[in-house]
């Protein structure tokens, strides 16, 4: 456990402070490792409990679009579990969220960093922080009762005028509880993280380059285009990926506004879809035996997916922040 070379034996006996320091360092190091241990355990336990499902379904667990457990008259149970449709749904909804949420967040971060007067900036930073603290079930409730009626109307307009684009088409004009609605709610939910990461990155833009641009007669927008974007764009991509990680893992809000159906649906306006997280909640209530194991396996897939996205995102953000120093 110790980090430093063991001091000579006689001294170790006579100097008590060293012992206290060793205990201190040992304890702190032990707790420092706790997050690593927890993270490993999460992966381990979910993989362990889901192992039977992985073994039974194989690769089909990722590609299959059916989720059923049929008991025949003879009492024989046939399982067919696959999260394919839900994975497609997860990506689809998260994509809608990013397309809507990231530009808004970047604009907001630009406004806060380079345009806003000090007082408005303070208020808006608090507002964005507050958004991050709102419970996700609040977003779900508000999304269902307030946002959805509006989004349904927008969906109607999109359907009417942009139907020739495949994603905006729908088999029927049924826009309630669609992936589009869920994506809109998620877009609002990822705004705080994307905004605060972008703001942190924009604020790190080297001042001497900003001044150089202004001294050359640049307008504010000219400065942002020549200095801020080249410096910060990769960091903003990292921030967007952090938002993507959030969007992948969001459960309650999506469950509330989305009509979860086990089918691949690429028509974002059409009222059916799903994501892995909300599907777990949906099936959990009546799941027994094998299905519970399959849901834990689905949880493992979700865990790995978000972990990878987050790790990549953090690496990118860190690199950008370093390059500004």
């Amino acid at each position: 456990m110790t980090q430093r070379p063991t001091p000579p034996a006689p001294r170790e006996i006579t100097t008590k402070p060293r012992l206290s320091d060793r205990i201190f360092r040992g304890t702190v190091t032990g707790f420092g490792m706790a997050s690593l241990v927890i993270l490993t355990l999460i992966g381990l336990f979910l993989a362990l409990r889901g192992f039977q499902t992985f073994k039974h379904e194989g690769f089909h667990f990722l590609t299959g679009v059916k989720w059923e457990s049929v008991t025949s008259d003879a009492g024989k149970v046939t399982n067919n579990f696959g999260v394919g449709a839900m994975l497609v749904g997860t990506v689809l909804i998260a994509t809608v969220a990013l397309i809507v949420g990231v530009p808004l967040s970047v604009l907001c971060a630009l406004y806060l960093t380079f345009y806003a007067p000090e007082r408005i900036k303070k208020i808006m930073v608090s507002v964005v922080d507050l958004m991050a603290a709102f419970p996700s079930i609040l977003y779900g409730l508000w999304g269902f009762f307030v946002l959805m009626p509006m989004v349904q109307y927008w969906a109607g307009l999109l359907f009417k005028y942009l139907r020739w684009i495949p994603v905006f088409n729908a088999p029927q004009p049924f826009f309630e509880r669609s992936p589009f609605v869920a994506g809109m709610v998620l877009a609002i939910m990822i705004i705080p993280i994307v905004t605060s990461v972008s703001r942190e990155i924009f604020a790190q833009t080297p001042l001497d380059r900003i001044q150089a641009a202004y001294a050359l007669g640049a307008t504010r927008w000219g400065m942002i285009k020549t200095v801020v974007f080249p410096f910060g764009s990769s960091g903003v991509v990292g921030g967007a990926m952090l938002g993507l990680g959030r969007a992948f893992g969001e459960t309650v809000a999506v469950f509330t506004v989305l009509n979860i159906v086990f089918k691949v649906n690429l028509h974002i306006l059409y009222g059916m879809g799903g994501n892995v997280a909300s599907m777990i909640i949906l099936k959990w209530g009546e799941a027994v035996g094998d299905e519970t194991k399959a849901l834990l396996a689905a949880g493992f897939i979700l865990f790995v997916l978000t972990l990878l996205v987050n790790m990549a995102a953090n690496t990118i953000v860190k690199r950008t922040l370093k390059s500004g120093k």
Partner: protein
Amino acid sequence: MSPAEDMNNETPGEDMSIDSKVSSSALADVANARSAAREPGKAPMGSGLEARGIHAWFGKHHALENVSLDFASGTVTALIGPSGCGKSTFIRTLNRMHEFIPSAAMAGEVLLDGKDIYAKGTDVTKIRLQIGMVFQKPNPFPSMTIGENVLSGLKLAQLKVDNKEDLMQECLERAGLWNEVKDRLGAHAGGLSGGQQQRLCIARSLAVKPKVLLMDEPCSALDPGSTLRIEDTIGQLAQSMTIIIVTHNMQQAARVSDYTAFFLSDGGPGNMIEVGPTNEIFSRPRDQRTENYVSGRFG
């Protein structure tokens, strides 16, 4: 042609007595040699810059008090003084870079060709096109190539130029960098040495054809060899434009400038103590404090 001498805090009683003491100093020799070498009246007349009663504040802190200075066109003026004397603040009021600090305020006027650059309705970006600036640390845009850096000012101000290659070459030649980079204009600017980067920044400022070039300690981050090359460049540029340079280095002031202004803060706001032809400032300063500073007794 001489800078305005109606300055504040002048103490006329002391100036005669110190005359002989400093005249033989090395700095004065340098300055005398330069003023002898420079042909008077060769520089074009016309647009000059004139600061009238400039005050600057940062919040409640009064950083600069009542500075008035004339910069005749085609001259090099050095601003010297110990750290915190307000010389950098002053130079930043001259092209309106001062206002980027949120708490900043100012009073007074800066006249370019007789027009106040702080007048209502002035387009500040046009002002900065006419009064360029080179900073302490070389700051080329790292995402651009050397050539793009030179032309970046045109792009930023959306100016049209007939022949970009000629302009690029001209600016790099005037900045004394052409021979070193002519074969790699497409390379990224980050690969240049510190001194080369600073000359690239000078070339970048020249591309928008400013009338005045402000230099805020342009050599303080460079090695002696690069410093000399930049000083050469300044000498060349002074033929065609007005240059104002802030420097900590008195040798440099003596080597490159026609006029020198001495700034000092006694704990309160910075003041300009005295201004005059550089050889006189270094040989026969009228103020005791100037003499103490140029003779190395403090600062």
